[in-house]
């Protein structure tokens, strides 16, 4: 019997579809080729099992601290970018690529009609996709923020003899959430979605308090943070907005009929 070549075995192990059935049939009949395939799989498994050190939870933050001083401020403005043909072309791909559509959306919203590249339909599509992108990102962000707020609301000193409350984990996550929160608040404002922007603004103040705390907060500091959450009814507002975003996403999945009405409703509620 002619054995399989190493190339055939590697291709089979790699999931290659061409001639797969014939190779599989041979392997099932030939003990030698089967053993060879197992040796190959073991080698790959041994490689994958090699440990890769964990760079740590704050690794991204450290990378940013190292590179930030070396990043030059970008001078480009939206009106320069919209003149780039690539972006105008990208405006037509709204349905295909979420990311491209989002970036292109800025172009189609701001481009002057005389350019003639972007149709009214494309503009409406792009606006819808931009809103969907914002909803997706904010929905995820609110979910993570709610968890931090919940944990703070339920936090207490570790024992009767300790007065301070340990918010180290919440502080680290609040730091991470702050950057995103600012981005989404600014984008929501830019999109005219003041309902979202207002809730994010209130959330940002609490996140700032937590992020700037020492991690081990005194009873007075803890009371102040909790007070801010309670006074603003922040947890409730976050949950309402999360529900509203879920409803919007479901509506969008059924059909993109609604456009500005939900935004107006949200703005009025806030």
């Amino acid at each position, binding site marked *: 019997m*002619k054995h399989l070549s190493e190339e055939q075995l590697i291709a089979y192990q790699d999931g290659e579809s061409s001639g797969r059935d014939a190779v599989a049939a041979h392997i099932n009949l030939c003990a030698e080729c089967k053993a060879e395939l197992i040796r190959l799989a*073991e080698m790959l498994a041994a490689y994958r099992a090699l*440990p890769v*050190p964990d760079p740590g939870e704050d690794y991204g933050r450290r990378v940013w601290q190292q590179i930030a001083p070396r990043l030059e401020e970008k001078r480009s403005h939206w009106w320069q970018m919209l003149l780039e043909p690539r972006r105008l072309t990208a405006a037509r791909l709204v349905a295909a690529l979420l*990311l491209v559509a989002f*970036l*292109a959306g800025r172009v189609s919203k701001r481009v002057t009609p005389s350019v003639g590249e972007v149709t009214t339909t494309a503009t409406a599509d792009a606006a819808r996709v931009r809103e969907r992108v914002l909803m997706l*990102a904010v929905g995820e962000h609110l979910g993570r923020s709610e968890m931090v707020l919940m944990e703070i609301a339920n936090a207490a000193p570790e024992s009767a003899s300790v007065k301070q409350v340990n918010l180290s984990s919440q502080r680290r996550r609040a730091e991470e959430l702050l950057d995103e929160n600012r981005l989404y608040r600014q*984008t929501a404002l830019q999109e005219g979605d003041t309902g979202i922007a207002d809730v994010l603004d209130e959330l940002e103040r609490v996140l700032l308090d937590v992020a700037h705390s020492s991690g081990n907060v005194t009873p007075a500091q803890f009371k102040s943070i909790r007070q801010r959450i309670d006074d603003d009814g922040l947890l409730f507002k976050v949950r309402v907005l999360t529900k509203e975003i879920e409803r919007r996403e479901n509506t969008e999945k059924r059909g993109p009929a609604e456009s500005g009405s939900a935004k107006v409703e949200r703005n009025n509620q806030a």
Partner: protein
Amino acid sequence: MNESVESVRAADAIAIERTLAGDRDAFRVLVERHSATIFRLAYRLTGNHHDAEEIVQEAFLRAYQKLEQFASQANFATWVYRIAANYTIDRMRQRKQEDARRQAPSAETSDDVEQDPLRQIPDIAPTPERLTQSVELRTQMENALQSLTPAERTAFVMRHCDGCGIEEIAAALKSNSSAAKNTVFRAVHKLRQTLQPQFAPRATARAMGTES
């Protein structure tokens, strides 16, 4: 809570837009979200913590500088991964050239270096990381990986560790699909040849297909 792929891409899109609009700090969100993935790739490619950290920094610096070119790309994570892979190949090649020059000042030029196994001296200096788990296997594997060219090692890691598609590997290697596929195959073949007997092919003739 795990973020969905779609929501990560949505979040990335917003960060990219604001960075391009002149908000430098918006780029921080991208760095913080994707650094660990790039670190794992860089470590797999170099086997060295310090090198991996330098590669991560350089990859994000380059991504920032080229961000205006990103609009036609679909996924920031894939894009910065490719930048890192590409930069690592160049860096490893350059290092091999420098090593070769140090060892034989009047030797042949760079193109020959990668092809010559004698020039590929493995670095077997033990580090605390290397002493963890199966020391012997790890050392053998590290040595075997050192015998690969930068392109082979990158193709192998991308395919068999990160599960990248051939097209993606071809883009990182700046070659075509067929060449990328061959590079992956060559990498696996060389590793098996170099590694301990239980992983090695049963006969060199196997590559051609043989009668039993």
